[in-house]
C-alpha cells in the first residue's frame, strides 16, 4: 500500500519523442518573436495577371485576405428599406380591409337617419378609401422596381425607340377620334343611335382591318403620281425650265428692240383639228392656264374642248373637258379660281367647277333658261353681287349682252338675267324691222365696274353701263371689220385698245371719239393684250404668225419686237395672254398649239415713275 507514494517520489524522467530536433543551449534560449497579423495564411501570394497596357504578366501585389469561416443567412431587414416598407404597407392594407368591413357593419346597425348617416359613413369610408388608395398607389409605385422576374425585354415590346413623329401622329389621331366621339355624343343622345354608332364603329373597324391586309389599291397615289410626272418632265425639259427662270437676253443692252425666247409648247393629241379660241391665266395659281378649243369655221363645227395646262407639265393637260360644241370663250374667276365660265358656238354658256371630279359642267344654260341664239364670243366673270352670288356676262352675235347669276333656290340653280340688247339706233332697213348689232367682245372698266366697252361685228365700239339696259353712252367708229378684241388699260383710267381683222390696232381715250394711235400690222390682227406690269406695253398677234410687242414709252411708232413664232403659211395666231406675274406670254394658234415665250428685258421695262393704280395706290 505504500507503493503508490513511492511511485510518486520517483524521479520523473524526461521523455523525448523520437523525431524531436536536437538543439543546442544557445539555440534553446534564443528569443523568437511571433507577430499576429490579420493576413489570411491560406490566401495565395503569387497571383499573376495579364496587363493589356504593358502586355505582360505581372504579379499582383494585393490579394483578398478575407477568409470566410461560417455563413448564416438571416431574415432581418432594415425597417427603412424598400422591402420593409412594402411589407408594412401590405400588412396595413389587410388591416384596413378589416376595419372597413367592421365600419360597414356598424353603419348597418346604427339605423338612425339612415340617409344622412349612411352618406356620412360612406364619405368616411371614402376618405379611408382614399388613404388606402394612396398607400396602394404608393405601394404600386414602389412595386414598379424591376426585378429579374418582372423585367420586360426590349425586343418583346411593340415599338422600340419610336420616333417622335410617329407618337405625334398617334396622338393627333386619338385627338381627332375623341373630338368625333364628343360631337357624336352631342348630336346623338338616344339609345338607338348609340347602338347604331357602335355597329358602325365595329363595321368600320372590321372593314378597315380587312382592307389593311388586302388593299393594293393604288388610287391613293393620284397626287403623288402627278408630282412624279412633273419631276420627270422637269428633268426632260430641264433646259427650258432653266431658261424660264434665269435666261436674260444680253443683246438687249445694245438695241432698243426685244426678243421672245421660245419656251414650252403645249399640244393635246386629241385636239389636232381644233384651233385655240381662247386663253386665260388663273390668277391664283399663276402657272395654270385655260385653253378653249373649237373651230371658227362655220362649216366645220364639231366638238370642242376645254383644257387646263400647267407650265410645270407641258406634256399633258391637268384638266380635260370634252364638249359637244366648240368652246368659243372662257374666263376663270379671279377669286374662286376653280370656277371656269365657258361660252359655246351653239349659244350656251356653262360653268365648270374644277374641284369636282366630273367631266360635266356644274351649270349649263339651255333653251328654257334663255341661251343665246348665236355663238357666244366672250364671257367675263364679275364681282359677286350683294347677296354673294357669282355672276358673269356673256356677249353673243344675237345682239344681246346677258348677265347670268347663279342663285340657289331650294337646292336648284336658277339663272336670272339682265339683258342689254343692241338695237341699231338708226334703222336703215325697210319696213322698220329691228336690226341688232352683233356683239363680239366686251371689257369692263378696271375701276368703275359698271362701265363697259362692247366691240361689235360691224366694227363699232359701244360704251355703256350696266345701269342702262337700252341706252348706249357713246359709240366709236373703230374699225372697218369686226372688232376682235377691246381692252381697258390696267393703269390708265381713260385708255383702251382695240384690234380688228382690218389689219389695225387702235388706242383710244374714251373721252375722245377718234383714236389716239393707230398701228397697221400688215396682217389680220387676231388679239391684243395690255401687259400687267406697265401701262405702255401691249402685244398683238396676227394671222401671218407674228407677235408684235410695243412699248409706247420707248417707241411710239414702231414695235419693239415683231417675231415670227409659227410656220408662216400653215398657222395663224389667234390669241395672246400675258402671265400676271412671270415674264412670259402664251400664244395660241389655229392648229391647237399653244406656245409659251419669255419676254426679253427690253419688253419688260417698268416705268421709272411710280405707277399709281386707278384708286391711287402705288403698284407693287
Amino acid at each position, binding site marked *: 500500500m505504500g507503493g503508490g507514494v513511492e511511485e510518486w517520489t520517483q524521479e520523473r524522467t524526461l521523455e523525448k519523442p523520437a523525431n524531436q530536433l536536437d538543439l543546442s543551449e544557445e539555440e534553446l534560449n534564443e528569443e523568437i518573436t511571433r507577430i499576429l497579423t490579420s493576413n489570411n495564411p491560406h490566401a495565395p501570394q503569387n497571383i499573376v495577371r495579364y496587363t493589356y497596357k504593358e502586355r505582360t504578366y505581372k504579379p499582383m501585389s494585393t490579394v483578398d485576405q478575407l477568409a470566410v469561416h461560417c455563413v448564416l443567412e438571416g431574415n432581418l431587414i432594415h425597417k427603412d428599406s424598400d422591402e420593409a416598407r412594402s411589407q408594412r404597407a401590405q400588412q396595413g392594407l389587410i388591416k384596413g380591409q378589416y376595419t372597413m368591413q367592421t365600419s360597414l357593419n356598424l353603419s348597418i346597425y346604427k339605423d338612425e337617419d339612415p340617409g344622412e348617416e349612411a352618406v356620412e359613413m360612406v364619405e368616411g369610408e371614402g376618405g379611408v378609401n382614399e388613404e388606402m388608395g394612396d398607400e396602394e398607389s404608393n405601394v404600386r409605385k414602389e412595386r414598379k422596381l424591376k426585378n429579374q422576374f418582372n423585367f420586360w425585354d426590349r425586343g418583346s415590346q411593340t415599338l422600340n425607340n419610336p420616333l417622335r*413623329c410617329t407618337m*405625334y401622329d398617334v396622338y393627333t389621331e386619338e385627338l381627332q377620334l375623341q373630338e368625333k366621339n364628343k360631337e357624336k355624343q352631342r348630336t346623338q343622345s338616344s339609345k338607338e343611335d348609340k347602338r347604331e354608332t357602335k355597329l358602325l364603329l365595329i363595321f368600320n373597324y372590321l372593314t378597315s382591318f380587312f382592307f389593311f391586309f388586302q*388593299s393594293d389599291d*393604288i388610287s391613293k*397615289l393620284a397626287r403623288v403620281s402627278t408630282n412624279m410626272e412633273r419631276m420627270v*418632265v422637269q*428633268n426632260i425639259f*430641264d433646259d427650258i425650265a432653266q431658261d424660264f427662270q434665269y435666261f436674260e437676253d444680253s443683246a438687249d443692252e445694245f438695241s432698243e428692240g426685244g426678243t421672245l425666247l421660245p419656251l414650252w409648247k403645249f399640244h393635246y393629241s386629241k385636239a389636232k383639228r381644233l384651233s385655240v379660241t381662247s386663253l386665260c391665266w388663273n390668277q391664283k395659281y399663276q402657272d395654270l392656264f385655260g385653253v378653249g378649243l373649237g373651230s371658227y369655221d362655220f362649216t366645220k363645227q364639231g366638238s370642242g374642248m376645254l383644257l387646263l395646262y400647267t407650265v410645270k407639265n407641258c*406634256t399633258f393637260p391637268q384638266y380635260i373637258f370634252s364638249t359637244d360644241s366648240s368652246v368659243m370663250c372662257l374666263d376663270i374667276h379671279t377669286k374662286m379660281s376653280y370656277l371656269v365660265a365657258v361660252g359655246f358656238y351653239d349659244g350656251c354658256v356653262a360653268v365648270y367647277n374644277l374641284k369636282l371630279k366630273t367631266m360635266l359642267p356644274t351649270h349649263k344654260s339651255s333653251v328654257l333658261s334663255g341661251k343665246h341664239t348665236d355663238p357666244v364670243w366672250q364671257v367675263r366673270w364679275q364681282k359677286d353681287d350683294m347677296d354673294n352670288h357669282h355672276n358673269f356676262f356673256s356677249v353673243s352675235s344675237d345682239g344681246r349682252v346677258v348677265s347670268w347669276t347663279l342663285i340657289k333656290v331650294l337646292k336648284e340653280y336658277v339663272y336670272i338675267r339682265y339683258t342689254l340688247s343692241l338695237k341699231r339706233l338708226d334703222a336703215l332697213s325697210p319696213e322698220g324691222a329691228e336690226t341688232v348689232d352683233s356683239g363680239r367682245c366686251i371689257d369692263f372698266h378696271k375701276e368703275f365696274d359698271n362701265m363697259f366697252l362692247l366691240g361689235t361685228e360691224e366694227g363699232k365700239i359701244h360704251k355703256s353701263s350696266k345701269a342702262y339696259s337700252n341706252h348706249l353712252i357713246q359709240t366709236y367708229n373703230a374699225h372697218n371689220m369686226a372688232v376682235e378684241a377691246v381692252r381697258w388699260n390696267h393703269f390708265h383710267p381713260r385708255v383702251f385698245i382695240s384690234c380688228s381683222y382690218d389689219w389695225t390696232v387702235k388706242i383710244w381715250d374714251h373721252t375722245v371719239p377718234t383714236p389716239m394711235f393707230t398701228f397697221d400690222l400688215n396682217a389680220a390682227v387676231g388679239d391684243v393684250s395690255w401687259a400687267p406690269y406697265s401701262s405702255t406695253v401691249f402685244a398683238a398677234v396676227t394671222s401671218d404668225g407674228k407677235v408684235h410687242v410695243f412699248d409706247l414709252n420707248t417707241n411710239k411708232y414702231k414695235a419693239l419686237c415683231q417675231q415670227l413664232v409659227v410656220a408662216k403659211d400653215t398657222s395663224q395666231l389667234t390669241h395672246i395672254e400675258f402671265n400676271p406675274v412671270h415674264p412670259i406670254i402664251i400664244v395660241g394658234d389655229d392648229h391647237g398649239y399653244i406656245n409659251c415665250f419669255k419676254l426679253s428685258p427690253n419688253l419688260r421695262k417698268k416705268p421709272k415713275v411710280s405707277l399709281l393704280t386707278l384708286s391711287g395706290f402705288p403698284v407693287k
Partner: protein
Amino acid sequence: MSVEETIKRIQSQKGVQGIIIVNAEVLICNAGIPIKTTLDNSNTVHYAGLIHQLVMKARSTVREIDPQNDLTFLRVRSKKNEIMIAPDKDYFLIVIQNPSE
C-alpha cells in the same frame, strides 16, 4: 385622270428606266414589299428594300425637326441616272430616269 394613265405616261417619257410602287406600312411587318414594277424581280426587290430604309430615314429627319412637317419628294441623283421617290402615307412611288438619254 386615273393613276394608271399617269403612270403609263411616266413610263413612256424619255429616259425613264423603271417604275416601282412599294408598300410602306410601318407597323405590320410587310413593309418594303413592291406591289407593282416595270423592272425585273431581283432589281425591284433590291431597290425596294434599300430605298425603303432611305425614305424612312429621310422622313424621320424632316419630322424630328418639325413634327408638323412631312417629306413630299426625294431625288437621288447619281452619275448614271436619277432615282426619284415620292412617298405617300401608305405607298412609295419610285421612278428611275436617265435624263440625258
